[in-house]
């Protein structure tokens, strides 16, 4: 076997990077701002600033401390990094070494995960997988020489700290010329604020299904549901409005730490190509992003350049990033509207050529509803995944050299069926566990099994399949550069995303991380694997793999886009190809924070290469 770990790969000098802050007495004697000396105050402490300021250079210090955040008349505890929420922009250059020093001024352990960055696993920042975590008062140094460029972000991987402000953007400028031409850039970092403690949110989710939703069906709603459809949902013991577990008004949605009432303005000069680096740093929220009147040209997804594609709106899953170019040619103010997927609220900023100029924000649209397709009855798909963005079968077959392909049964087989017709089918089994592979542990943690899960990479996202303008979907993403190293997958895996809405249990293959942490997903070194994710739940899960990019199998052959996070649509599947060329242990999880906390996580263990000498 090629799979033995090589301690010799790890220089001894790197083995003990955690040092006490107290040891840095010299540094402590220097005048430092309040946030750097831990004097933020634990409760009702110093008000944190709203991001985002930039840090760059060979040494970058991040100080994690408590603070108090306020927006829109509400305030609450926050964890601020260098005194702001979001924390600073870390700006690096491809090929140039920086040392990122993380100082934990909290009275609990903390950590920083560099989301999307390629680096040795021991610096990846997941306590319990990549390192022991950063103790209160301690410092952790991460030497980093970027092997990539693009838009990324960082966040805590300790407890639920990410919910309360412990996140920020990363930009890595390319060593050579940037293929993306732009005159000005802005970060659009989306997140949420709530005065409710994240542990309280978790408990409410556990004990009270639908606690946060104020958009449920009722006797007086005006949802376009027939009585029969309502009975069908009731029979299944599920809710067609179960789209976001936590939403407004519990959440105030933020752009760069600014709530809608904070009036964030981002400047432009007419005629400029403005690059918006959109990062979804939220804990639980998918956003629909648009600038009414300004088309967006998507040029990058998850930090990786893609062939430009022009759209009017896009849905961004938690932890994803998209870079888009907008070119406002005339003076004015444009609304940057980021509507939560369940349409309970909107993050807002204004792209304006004149300070103080207001933009007209679109009203929240009617909340979308789940359909039978989202319950895994994919044959009934009537948004027609097969016709809006056809898979190029010849390309895919070429890439896969005869391996079984993941695309779903032709969607048109049942086209013409509608919800009403399906209701007549009556006793269909929403939980036929005989459809599951033996690798899935069947138990109370699985309340649904997708009967005919479709590959829905052509789906623009819940509620965006019937809007009258152009919306991004995964099949429109083509990597800018051709992948010359592509090998056909040597083996295929199927992983099921499983859950129980009522009990708020979330898992992979029916087993929570707490049950199977000692039995990781294992890969050889440089294996080429095709992984099919099957979503046996009716929620969209943004699944994130640390440490490596995978290529989304979206019909684009040698231009399959590289991503670090993939949305698996409800009741559907998504497939990626992966070259396991980053040895070590990596986290792999649903990036909905409370799903991860409930157990939807696993370790991916990549073997170390054989001694090459």
């Amino acid at each position, binding site marked *: 076997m090629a799979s033995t770990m090589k301690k010799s790969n790890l220089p001894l000098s790197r083995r003990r990077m955690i040092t006490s802050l107290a040891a840095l007495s010299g540094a402590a004697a220097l005048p430092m701002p309040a946030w750097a000396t831990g004097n933020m105050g634990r409760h009702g402490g110093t008000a944190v600033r709203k991001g985002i300021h930039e840090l760059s250079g060979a040494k970058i210090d991040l100080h994690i401390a408590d603070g108090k955040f306020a927006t829109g008349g509400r305030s609450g505890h926050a964890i601020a990094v260098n005194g702001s929420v979001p924390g600073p922009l870390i700006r690096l250059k491809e090929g140039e070494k920086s040392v990122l020093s993380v100082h934990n001024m909290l009275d609990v*352990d903390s950590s920083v995960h560099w989301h999307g960055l390629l680096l040795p696993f021991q610096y990846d920042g997941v306590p319990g997988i990549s390192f022991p975590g950063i103790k209160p008062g301690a410092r952790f140094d991460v030497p980093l020489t970027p092997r990539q460029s693009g838009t990324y972000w960082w966040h805590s991987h300790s407890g639920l700290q990410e919910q309360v402000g412990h996140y920020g953007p990363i930009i890595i400028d390319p060593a050579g010329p940037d293929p993306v031409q732009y005159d000005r850039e802005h970060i659009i970092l989306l997140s949420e604020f709530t005065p409710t403690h994240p542990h309280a949110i978790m*408990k409410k989710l556990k004990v009270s299904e639908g606690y946060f939703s104020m958009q449920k069906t009722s006797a007086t709603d005006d949802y376009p549901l027939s009585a029969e459809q309502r009975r069908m949902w009731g029979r299944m013991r599920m809710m067609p409005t179960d789209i976001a577990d936590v939403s407004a008004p519990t959440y105030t949605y933020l752009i760069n730490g600014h709530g809608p009432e904070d009036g964030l303005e981002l400047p432009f000069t007419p005629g400029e190509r403005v690059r918006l680096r959109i990062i979804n740093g939220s804990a639980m929220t998918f956003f629909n992003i648009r600038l009414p009147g300004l088309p967006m040209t998507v040029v990058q997804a998850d930090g990786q350049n893609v062939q430009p594609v022009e759209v009017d709106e896009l849905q961004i899953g938690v932890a994803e990033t998209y870079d888009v170019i907008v070119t406002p040619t005339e003076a004015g103010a444009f609304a940057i509207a980021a509507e939560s997927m369940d349409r309970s609220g909107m993050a807002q900023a204004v792209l304006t050529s004149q300070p103080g100029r207001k933009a007209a924000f679109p009203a929240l649209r009617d909340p979308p509803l789940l359909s039978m397709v989202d319950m895994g009855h994919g044959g009934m798909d009537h948004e027609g995944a097969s016709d809006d963005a056809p898979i190029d079968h010849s390309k895919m077959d070429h890439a896969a050299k005869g391996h079984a392909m993941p695309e779903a049964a032709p969607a048109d087989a049942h086209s013409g069926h509608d919800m009403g017709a399906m209701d007549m089918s009556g006793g269909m089994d929403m939980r036929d566990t005989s459809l599951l592979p033996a*690798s899935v542990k069947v138990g109370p943690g*699985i309340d649904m099994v997708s009967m005919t899960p479709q590959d829905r990479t052509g789906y623009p996202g819940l509620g965006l399949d019937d809007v009258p303008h152009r919306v991004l979907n995964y099949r429109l993403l083509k990597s800018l550069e051709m992948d010359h190293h592509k090998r056909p997958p040597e083996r295929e895996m199927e992983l099921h995303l499983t859950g129980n809405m009522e009990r708020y249990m979330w898992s992979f293959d029916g087993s929570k991380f707490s049950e199977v942490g000692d039995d990781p997903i294992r890969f050889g070194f440089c294996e080429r694997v095709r992984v099919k994710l099957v979503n046996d739940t009716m929620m969209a899960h943004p699944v994130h793999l640390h440490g490596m990019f995978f290529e989304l199998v979206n019909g684009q052959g040698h231009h399959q886009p590289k991503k670090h996070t993939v949305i698996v649509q409800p009741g559907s599947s998504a497939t990626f190809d992966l070259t396991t060329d980053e040895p070590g242990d990596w986290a792999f999880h649903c990036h909905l924070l409370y799903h991860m906390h409930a157990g939807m996580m696993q370790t991916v263990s990549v073997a170390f290469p054989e001694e090459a000498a």
Partner: protein
Amino acid sequence: MRLFSATLAATIATTPALAQDHSQMDHDRMDHSPSAAPQTSSPNSLTGPPTAADAVWGVEAMRPSREALYRGHGDMQIFWIQGDRLEYRGRDGGDGYLWDAQSYYGGDINKFWFKSEGEGSFGEPLESAEIQALYSRAIAPFFDLQAGVRQDLTGLDRTHAVIGVQGLMPYMFEVDVAAFLSDKGDLTARIEAEYDQRLTQRLILQPRAEINLSAQDIPELGIGSGIDHLELGLRLRYEIAREFAPYIGVEQEWKLGGGRDFARLAGEDASTTNYVIGVRFWF
């Protein structure tokens, strides 16, 4: 985690020879730069916990963080307490009160479950009161199996063994069905069902039914065999918060069959209408 799929399991289980070939190929390619020619991979046949970080940071440093990581991702223990019905009952012949509360502590699958209910009329001794201590285990996506003991606190202070099922039926009916075997050998049962009909996001109409059954006459407790006692209620609550909802309602009680006869003998009404006002809360 288990293996990703049956496919993978089959690959590893049935193809040691193939795996061997792969490692030989790796050796053959050792002369080349590892990043150049496409490498043939070896399935990773290691087992046991992930250890990569141990080699960097030390086993002792990693152990507590790893334990905390697993505990923090799926092993949450929760304490919950609910006053489902805490109410004042206006009725002919003397107003009364009722409580119906439950609480649990535990994880997703195993819980300790506590229940208590009782009622009485003002100015009189407690009419009935009981507590139950149950072990509860999730046996299906929507159902828990519960077993334990029930102690009556009034009347003849009987102790019962309890076995029951609590959960959510299709069409969203909350049900709690339990059988009780008393220390005198009497077998009784109780079926409760509730349904929440949202009128708005906060205003909820809740029909409720309770049926008490007995396998035998228990004259000393005034219980008749068969359907002894039936309650149908309708409560309208307003969720000021999800956790706190005052309500008003009406509940009709009937003693039936042998139970009705016992009630009449005792000079009680076999049928009672209660106009209720109360509060439902949990935290």
